[in-house]
């Protein structure tokens, strides 16, 4: 259990800047997820913490120890690689023992730790197998086991689930969350899958374009995205972003959509150059009747517990709306859409955002 602090960290590969002036404080026992689109520098940042990439500028402190110049093995962090990087020629037990033998841990201690890790991960039966004899999910666990036995100050995960199939991914995600609750150790988890980030993180660090775009709890990030980028990147299906012209004053602000319909904006600040209105599909619902925005459904996806309705407004703007349960809306139907005024977002030209709640 150790805190990790990055301060003013930068990195470039040749002329290309990959990480620009990133500062970040990770509390002991916290599970922090680095989330961001491909190429945003998540892996690089993680590898810099692990010591697999050098840090060009700034400082890295692990458990209070300045570490940017320590060799990877000396930082006492464990990494779980995307493809696990299990040593294919060693058994599961040997895989786990390798790191400990290198630092001359006594054989009986090694045995104990392996047994303990195997128990936690329920891989006792696999200890004498080789990685090639394991399923994807089992390999995943062994990779975690290899990390656990080192009793590291922090666990680093680089998209550990991306090689699993959808069902296994969902299951392993839950297992990982449980593991974190049990071990209570510091973990950094890299992913570009926002569902994983939302479900696992204590705190999400959203990276974009070499920088941290937002840092906060999943609820924060979802409900109060700091920028238009975060708003569209988090949530699936993505938030609808509609160009609007905002008018009115005081408490009576209105947004006019491009099709001419009006949306009320109770409590939004005036005097900002609001350009776009953001609304998540679940806050844009199909209603039977009323004086709402009207649209034509183009594709209807019944997901069981809810139905996504892809619709076109009168002026052709595409929106994604939601209907409850198994909707009876069919492609081609005219539908009325209701904006949940308690869950609207406004984005200004300068990048600042306002949230209804």
């Amino acid at each position, binding site marked *: 259990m150790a805190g990790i602090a990055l301060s003013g960290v930068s990195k470039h590969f040749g002329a290309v800047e990959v990480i620009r002036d990133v500062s970040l404080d990770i509390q002991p026992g916290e599970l922090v997820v680095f989330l961001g689109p491909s190429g945003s520098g998540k892996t690089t940042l993680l590898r810099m913490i*692990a*010591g*697999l990439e050098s840090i060009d500028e700034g400082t890295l402190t692990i458990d209070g120890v300045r570490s940017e110049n320590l*060799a*990877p*093995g*000396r930082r006492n*962090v*464990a*990494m779980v*690689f*995307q*493809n696990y*990087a299990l*040593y*294919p*020629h060693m058994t599961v037990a040997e895989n786990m023992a*390798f*790191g400990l033998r*290198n*630092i001359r841990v006594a054989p009986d201690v090694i045995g104990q730790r392996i047994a303990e890790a195997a128990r936690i991960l329920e891989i006792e039966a696999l200890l004498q197998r*080789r990685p090639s004899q394991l399923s994807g999910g089992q390999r995943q666990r062994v990779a975690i086991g*290899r990390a656990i036995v*080192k009793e590291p100050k922090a666990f680093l995960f680089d998209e550990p689930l991306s090689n699993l199939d959808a069902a296994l991914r969902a299951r392993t995600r839950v297992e990982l969350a449980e593991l974190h609750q049990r071990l209570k150790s510091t973990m950094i988890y890299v992913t570009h899958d926002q569902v994983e980030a939302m479900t696992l993180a204590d705190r999400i660090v959203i990276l974009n374009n070499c920088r941290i775009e937002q840092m906060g709890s999943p609820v924060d990030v979802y409900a109060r995205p700091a920028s238009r980028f975060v708003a569209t990147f988090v949530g699936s299906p993505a938030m609808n972003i509609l160009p609007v012209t905002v008018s009115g004053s005081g408490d009576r602000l209105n947004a006019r959509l491009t099709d001419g319909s009006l949306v009320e904006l109770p409590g939004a600040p005036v005097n900002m150059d609001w350009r776009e209105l953001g609304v998540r599909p679940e806050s844009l619902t199909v209603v039977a009747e009323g004086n709402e925005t009207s649209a034509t459904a183009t594709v209807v996806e019944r997901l069981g517990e809810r139905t996504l309705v892809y619709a076109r407004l009168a002026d052709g703007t595409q929106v994604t709306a939601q209907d409850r349960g198994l909707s009876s809306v069919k492609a081609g139907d005219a539908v009325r859409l209701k904006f949940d005024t308690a869950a609207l977002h406004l984005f200004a030209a300068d990048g600042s955002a306002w949230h209804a709640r």
Partner: protein
Amino acid sequence: MLRNSRTERLVALVLVAPFLAIYLLAFVYPTVQMFRISFTDAPLIGAGRWVGLDNYLRLDNDPMFRRALWNTAYFVLMTVVPGTLIALLIALGVSRLKGRFQAIVLALFFLPYILPVSVVYLIWDWTLNFQFGIAMHVLDWLGIPRVPVFKSRVWFLPAVAGVTIWWTAGFSILLFLAGLRSIPVEIYEAAALDNSTRWTTFRRITWPLLWPITSLVFTIQLILQLKIFDQVYLFSIGGRPNDNMVLVYYVFQKAFQQNQGGRAAAVAVTLFVLVVVVSVLQFQLLRFAERRRR
């Protein structure tokens, strides 16, 4: 998949026929013939009398055959193991390099392989020439007496083995490089995080992961070097062929210089069997070694 087996067979026949024809003519038939005439006293061309196992029995106390056998084994020993190790070392060195630089260095190591044996012979015969070879000037300069490499019984096979390693290492190097490249970088990164030293990484990670390639290189080298002829023949020109006798050379001498087809065939059969046995044996051995590792 739904198949029309009659058309399929017909097509298969058409496709296989050209190869099969050449295979039967240039491989199966000569092989059968080789076994057949090894039981006769035929000259190189023409029929001979059936002599049973005579040709084989005579090999038993034929000093030249023994020398050939011994020299072949000696040569194989000196090329296969050191050749494999040297190639591995070079591959490890080259694999560290990057981009164009790597390509250039690799080219330097690989170029000999694509040269014809006679070019290799001329170059080394010149380099190690006892009177004018540059290597001898270097020896003079180092104060070491000159060595008549290709003219002395002691040095001949080791020297030819050295040249052979130089000539064929490129092939093995490439295989090793392919093997090294197929080890994911992440494995090494994991090892680094596991506090592995350079030596431990080599011994516990690289070497075992490279084992399948090593055994492949070993097998290929073994089969190749048992067939040694060209180099020994060429370097023996104007030298001491009888001292340097190897199996294929002996086949050549018996058949083409002494016109004893039957006896030559007996030697050829011996070689043939030797190669097959050795490669089967080695295959089993390596498999065993691999299994023990598991």
